[in-house]
């Protein structure tokens, strides 16, 4: 096993990828390129095929045709090298509920054969504000804490590419903002993030570029500014802006961060 070289060129390339379940064509020829160190959002309704694409890229599923590479390694022929370069945070916070937060982190550290699992666990617990809960079973954690632990587990071994499949689904607004901040920090540190979401504002807030997946195809791909240009130019209108319920909620609960 060699350590993957730092990604030069695109971190992820996908060409002509298809996947069907029986008659149902979930992915119908996907082409996608994601620059290293960027946050790319994959936007689509439930059932649009976002998770299928992420599962193929993370070597959990094989495509029917087409190719995909992650930091230069083909997902079909070099799955072990791909796995060494990625971390997957699935739709449901995949933590071991019977183990404590610290033990969860150390388990992943041991499996990734890092030099000092205990030190890395302590460091991540501090970074993700889980020190007080470190030695409690993960079953007692709130949704936001579980998600933070989940993402912390994904960072062990510093994989250059991170897949986040609907990381904020089911989280309360505060936890959602926490996750957003974490993802922003990761990208600033050079990690490539592929994020799937069904929330438009999440994609707009976080992503450097956005691909819209619909009917098994990428129907639009570009920066937020580029996607806006697809529509007629903006015209100036007077609109009285009401605070959204989310603004009200966050103002009331105080937003300690």
């Amino acid at each position, binding site marked *: 096993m060699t350590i993957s070289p730092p990604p030069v060129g695109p971190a992820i390339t996908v060409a002509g990828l298809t996947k069907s379940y029986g008659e149902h064509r979930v992915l119908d020829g996907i082409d996608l390129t994601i620059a290293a160190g960027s946050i790319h959002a994959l936007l689509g309704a439930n059932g649009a095929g976002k998770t299928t694409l992420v599962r193929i890229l993370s070597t959990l599923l094989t495509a029917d045709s087409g190719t995909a590479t992650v930091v230069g390694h083909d997902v079909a022929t070099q799955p072990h090298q791909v*796995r060494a370069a990625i971390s997957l945070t699935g739709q449901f916070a995949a933590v*071991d509920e019977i183990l404590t937060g610290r033990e969860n982190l150390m388990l992943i550290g041991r499996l990734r054969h890092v030099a000092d699992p205990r030190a890395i666990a302590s460091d991540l617990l501090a970074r993700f504000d889980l020190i007080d809960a470190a030695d409690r079973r993960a079953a007692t954690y709130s949704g936001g804490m579980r998600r933070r632990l989940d993402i912390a587990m994904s960072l062990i071994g510093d994989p250059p590419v991170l897949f986040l499949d609907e990381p904020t689904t089911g989280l309360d607004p505060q936890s959602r903002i926490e996750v957003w901040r974490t993802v922003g920090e990761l990208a600033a540190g050079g990690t490539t993030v592929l994020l799937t979401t069904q929330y438009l504002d999440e994609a707009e807030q976080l992503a450097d570029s956005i691909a819209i997946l619909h009917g098994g195809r990428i129907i639009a791909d570009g920066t937020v500014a580029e996607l806006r240009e697809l529509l007629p130019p903006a015209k100036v209108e007077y609109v009285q802006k009401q605070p959204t319920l989310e603004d009200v909620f966050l103002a009331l609960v105080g937003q300690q961060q």
Partner: protein
Amino acid sequence: MTSTMNAAHVSDTATLLGRSLRHISRSPDTIITTAITPVAMLLLFVYVLGGSISVGQENYVNYLLPGILLITVASGISYTAFRLFTDVSTGLFERLQSMPIARSAVLWGHVLTSIVANAVSLVLVVLVALLMGFRSGAGIAAWLGVVGLLALFTLALTWLAVIPGLTAKSVDGVSGFSYPLVFLPFISSAFVPTDGMPGPVRWFAEHQPVTSIVNTLRHLLAEQPVGDDGWIAVAWCVGLLVVAYALAMRTYRRRIS
């Protein structure tokens, strides 16, 4: 390459074994529950029904114990299926499969845990049997034969348990599969000799695996020659192991591709 792969496999399996043994140490009720049903049967048959059952020997506990031990294993492996099912349903299984580890280590961790957990339950049942008057003058070699055959039987049923663990849709589905296995010893020589059974039932009882395994264990513990039953028992266990392993690995490969 191969030797480092194997070393990684052993170390990853050990890490995952340590993890699920920690699960068991935090919920010792799984071991107790496994032992309770067989112990209850032991009490019921010895103290309630035993007076009316004639097996041609003084000590009915001695006669009964081998079959009770098989029932212990049959009920113990339902927890193996349950633990694997929990990993699959929480997404932890996929997280591990997307990591650069020896992939089958995930299954082997569960399989070895099953061996350890069943061994503890078996010891508990034997201790209760000792209190109830079970005695054996068997030497080291005979005891090694007993332990070896029980280990082989446990391994075979454990790989069988991997299949529902990977495929079940609900907790009920997971535990349901072991009921027939728990019931099978009743139509065998485990509780009463097969001589008194009507024709077709007797034929089934004498040709199903439990009878040869029970007879072998009984003869080993009673310091009697094992005869053909020994080879038939080993053949059944090995055959079951090979088939269960092949089916489990096929199910596993479908699950991850």
